[in-house]
């Protein structure tokens, strides 16, 4: 039988779906019998989902224009060499 500790050890791979069918079946059996691990798996999955859906990666205009200015300077310096 799988212990809670075993379950936690496999949790990341379980959520990432990178485990084989046999182990997956064991883990799934564990969470049907263990409410704690079910909650941990469920809330960890939600945690990952919330962060994945987090703010887009648009860059502030001022930050971008300073970056471009710095790079342009750098490129100009290199081209002079």
């Amino acid at each position, binding site marked *: 039988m799988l212990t809670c500790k075993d379950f936690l050890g496999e949790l990341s791979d379980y959520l990432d779906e990178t485990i084989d069918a046999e182990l997956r079946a064991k883990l799934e059996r564990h969470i049907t019998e263990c409410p704690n691990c079910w909650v941990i798996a469920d*809330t960890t999955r939600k945690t990952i989902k919330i*962060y994945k859906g987090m703010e887009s990666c648009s*860059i502030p205009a001022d930050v971008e224009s300073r970056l471009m200015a710095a*790079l342009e300077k*750098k490129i100009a310096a290199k081209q002079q060499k």
Partner: protein
Amino acid sequence: MKEAAARAGYDGKHRVQMAVSSLTGIDEAELVTQAREGETAAFSELVRRYEGKIFRLAQHVTQNREDAEDVLQETFMKAYEHLDQFKGDSKFYTWIVRIAVNQSLMKLRRRKTDKTVSLDETIDTGEDTVVREVAAWGEDPEQRFSREELGDILGSAIESLEPLYRSVFVLRDVDELSTEETAEVLGLSVPAVKSRLLRARLQLRERLTRFFKRKGDDAFAYM
């Protein structure tokens, strides 16, 4: 909207990115080849493709906007300078992420704070993955908060992680790099990435539980 404004402002002052629009569909490897041959527009397109992700990553790791902006500039400067050292056996993006993470960690080391920043390998990666609070969450718990509040909650939860845990989590779960790519970027073994990722996820889960647990369970927890 914002992006268009940025571009307009930028077009007024600079010349380098002119040919960009015709490069947007070109694949990364081709852009890198062109950039190495001195095609400035190709390099600019690479910058434009990844600047947002690099800035976000640097903000997460450094937890400081100014540092993140420095990291952003240093990253692309270094990339430009060392473009000939890029071997092409990994993705260009992985290569610059590696530069960005190193620069970010360096910033953290340099920053003088009373709390010591531990970045070394001595962090215990043992089995004591602690789970202190187990409470179910509501259906879409994030809906209970405004966008801004949610941003603060998620940001401060990440900030509370150790820098290396933070980096692993952001690379794997925000940037969606593979475990192998994350290992390569951070110079860690695959098992080390996995154990840090698990801990980071569990710690974040625990922090978020405070905000997201089901309303009814709240009363229970404090009884």
